[in-house]
């Protein structure tokens, strides 16, 4: 399959809109192809590919709104989906929060589409996985991995003349390597827009090294420790700050970003001065769509700048109601760091713990953004600037807000893949004081 070009998408959406009899009509188009290869116990277990295309038509009569979707694009089907959305709109109760569709917008230029990824074949997938399998088999280690690539486009058009188009590609690779006796386990994950950047051999060597180095783990007492979080470990905590950025929940008094007296923390300093988290669709290392799902432009937006909450995300309705700018939810997560390498950070640590991955992160108390979860696949004790020995996994109960107030140092940001949401983020390694571990786990 090939995805629709901008001109083809424009022609298709124009045709869909020509069938509309509603007051307002907006059409979203998705066309994508996904391929994957999975292996476990050093053997390929499953592989597959899926083609997905979908057209969603939203029709509005006044404040009555209906949405219908379809995956067939012949003229009769296109007209049918428009009619169906109109029927649903007529049946729907009035939505007092419907604010109408946007007019034409200007978007930044973002390049998230790479031919190298769009042209991945099943042979390419097998070759990439094969390199990894050869290494683990030859080393008498056990590999379980997953390679998933996607290429596709999204476009939208509405009856007020807005048109947006964005093609993108992505490839995620993850691998868990275990020792045959099950005493050691290591993990690695890589995410890129450009497939040529993926080197499964070097990634595999990292997971192999962690698997071998994590065997014979010793138990440390739970408590508060200085930790160095590798980017993959930090990502799953930092992304939860993003998940909480909704201005309405903050204004309504039911999120961490709420304050006593019905106010929000917008403008408050909540974490260390060195913490800056922003989104930018034009970032070359982590490109993202320059428009949000409802057509609003995605601009470079500071969410936390030098420790201060600079923006919260507003729906267009809530922005109108509160007289604020309708800043959409961010499309990517970039956290600024420093220049020191992970090795430098270890070298300057008298006593601490290197955490390479966190797992099963769940909210415990939304008021303090307290999360629980565990370390996994390689946790190491650091003494006098050197990794001394592997340690047993810990459960933590910690808030990313408290954690970023106990910041000691930041390293160089890297693109990593969240092991919870599978989103790609740019996150630095972080050294944190007094990170709270509450119990030990025997899991390897």
């Amino acid at each position, binding site marked *: 399959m090939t995805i629709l070009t901008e001109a083809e998408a424009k022609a298709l959406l124009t045709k869909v809109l020509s069938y509309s009899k509603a007051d307002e009509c*907006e059409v*979203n188009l998705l066309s994508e192809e*996904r391929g994957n290869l999975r292996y*476990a*116990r050093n*053997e*390929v277990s*499953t592989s*597959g590919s899926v083609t*997905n295309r*979908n057209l*969603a*038509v939203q029709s509005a009569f006044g404040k009555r709104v209906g*949405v*219908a*979707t*379809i*995956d067939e694009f012949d003229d009769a089907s296109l007209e049918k989906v428009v009619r*169906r959305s109109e*029927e*649903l709109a007529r049946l729907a109760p009035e939505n007092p929060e419907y604010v109408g569709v946007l007019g034409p917008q200007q978007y930044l230029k973002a390049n998230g589409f790479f031919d190298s990824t769009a042209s991945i074949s*099943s042979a390419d997938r*097998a070759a990439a996985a*094969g390199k990894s399998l050869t290494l683990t088999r030859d080393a008498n280690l*056990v590999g*379980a991995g997953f390679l*998933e690539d996607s290429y596709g486009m999204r476009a*939208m058009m509405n009856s007020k003349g807005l048109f947006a188009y964005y093609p993108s590609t992505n490839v995620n690779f993850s691998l868990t390597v*275990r020792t045959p006796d*099950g005493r050691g386990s290591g993990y690695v994950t890589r995410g890129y827009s450009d497939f040529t950047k993926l080197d499964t051999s070097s990634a595999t060597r990292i997971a192999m090294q962690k698997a071998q180095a994590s065997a014979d783990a010793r138990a440390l007492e739970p408590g508060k420790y200085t930790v160095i979080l590798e980017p993959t470990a930090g990502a799953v905590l930092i992304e939860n700050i993003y998940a909480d950025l909704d201005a309405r929940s903050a204004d*309504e*008094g*039911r999120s961490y970003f*709420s304050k*006593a*007296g019905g106010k929000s923390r917008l403008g408050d300093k909540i974490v260390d001065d060195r913490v800056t988290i922003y989104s930018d669709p034009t970032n070359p290392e982590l490109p993202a769509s320059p428009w949000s*799902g409802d057509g609003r432009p995605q601009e470079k937006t500071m969410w936390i700048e030098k420790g201060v909450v600079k923006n919260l995300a507003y729906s267009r309705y809530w922005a109108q109601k509160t007289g604020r700018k309708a800043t959409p939810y961010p499309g990517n997560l970039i956290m600024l760091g420093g220049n020191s390498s992970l090795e430098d950070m270890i070298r300057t640590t008298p006593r601490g713990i290197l955490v390479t991955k966190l*797992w*099963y*992160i*769940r*909210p*415990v*108390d*939304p*008021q*303090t953004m*307290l999360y*629980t*979860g*565990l370390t996994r696949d390689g946790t190491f004790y650091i003494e006098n600037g050197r990794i001394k020995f592997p340690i047993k*996994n810990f*459960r933590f*109960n910690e808030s990313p807000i*408290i954690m970023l107030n106990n910041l000691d140092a930041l390293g160089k940001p890297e693109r990593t893949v969240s092991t919870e949401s599978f989103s790609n983020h740019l996150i630095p390694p972080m050294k944190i004081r007094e990170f709270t571990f*509450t*119990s030990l*786990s*025997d*899991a390897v």
Partner: protein
Amino acid sequence: MGAGSLLLPSLPAFSRTVAPEALLEPGLDVSVKKRLADAALNAAKSKGATYADVRIGRYLNQFVITREDKVENLINTESFGVGVRVIADGCWGFAAIVDARSETDMAKAAEKAVSIAKANATLMKTPVQLAPQKGFGEVSWKAPIKTNAFEVPIKEKADLLLTANSAALKNGANFVNSQLFLVNEQKYFASTDGTYADQDIHRIWPTFTVTAIDPKTGKFETRQALSAPMGMSYDYLQANPTDKITGITTRYNMGYDILEDITAAAKQAKQKLSAKSVEAGKYDLVLDPSHTWLTIHESVGHPLELDRVLGYEANFAGTSFATLDKWESKNFQYGSKLVNFFADKTQPNSLGAVGWDDEGVETQRWDLVKDGILVNYQAIRDQVHIIGETHSQGCCYADSWSSVQFQRMANVSLAAGKTPLSVAEMIKDVEKGVYIIGDGSFSIDQQRYNFQFGGQLFYEIKNGQIVGMLKDVAYQSNTREFWNSCVAVCDQRDFRLGGAFFDGKGQPMQSNAVSHGSTTARFKGVNVINTARKI
């Protein structure tokens, strides 16, 4: 964004939004499905498959989503297609096609599955060993529902939620979000073993979250529904008095009264704002089935999945502490002698109940832990030889026609105590304890040793009496230590189901729905932590 159906990632691929009436249209006639299935089976065999199965699936979803006095979203989706799975050259192959209506389409899918199997076979070292399965001929199974929720007008369903929301707001809630999830899987399975199973499965989950806020302090508390997702339909929302378990708060069995529960929830969320913050330490826990289902799910259901034990899920969900040597020893004490876990895919009104699994095995009940000892796992046809069995227990499931079926959790339950014991009698024996109702925060490690669970309602027990509400409670334990600390299990009168409507597993991830039954149980000296933090 405009695309309502795209907001919920758990919807099966290729679902399309349809008018509510379309969900009532009949699917293909069973004779047409048999003809299509035979076309795929014959094509697979003629291309060299030694085994083939076909799933023709029509999946219907209806979700009603509200907040306060507004219907936020109405989602109606239908997905129809075919998945063909084959063994050729000793290796699995799978292909799926959307909207297959002709014998030619079926043959094409089968041929593709065979070619994928043959390609993958070149990388394979050990051929698939499939447990034999007798054919059942043309059979059918239908969930025993009384009122099909898809036939109830959408307005009635939306009005029910809005009335519930209004009750919450009148009783002190500042905000309320409520949802009704309805699922109907119409599945036709056929295999070269000679089974043609036509099945009609229904699931329902009415749920809500109420929020109470103290504007002066900026604190807020929530209380979620004590409903369970069930393998039922609208009849679940028509509760009889016999479905209600009264006590410190009302809980529900085979029927749910959302208006009563949401009214209590609003009052309890407010009460939580001024409840006593728990003092960390060791407590006896008295766990209600509305809570225990999740602890069973995470610490028993998942570790006893044979694919996890073998390492097939090592890169994502993880492996298991319950390794084969522990099972082989026949003396691994998973829990105390009072602890009996059984798996049962025939349990009436449960989420996992079906007649045949997704590889043509008739469903059954079997023991996992007997008198505290680990005795079995949950497995599928290409695994059972590893545990010395010749017949699968029927744990194969795919969440859509487009997903390949694999081993999924059966309904796993804690058997009721054999000696008569009521909840009131159990609480009388507790000197220092916490009574937990409803499920809350949950987290467990990748081998299922260390876990932490919260809840919805916590009550302090002192010297055999409930003395007041607590908050900021979570307990941490280790699976084996925890189930060995089980000192009392109430009798069958208290047996109720809880469950997971969207349990994720696999890469790419698939969703599964599964119930877990239990009676109220008591655990001695469990570590309780206080989850409040100052910022």
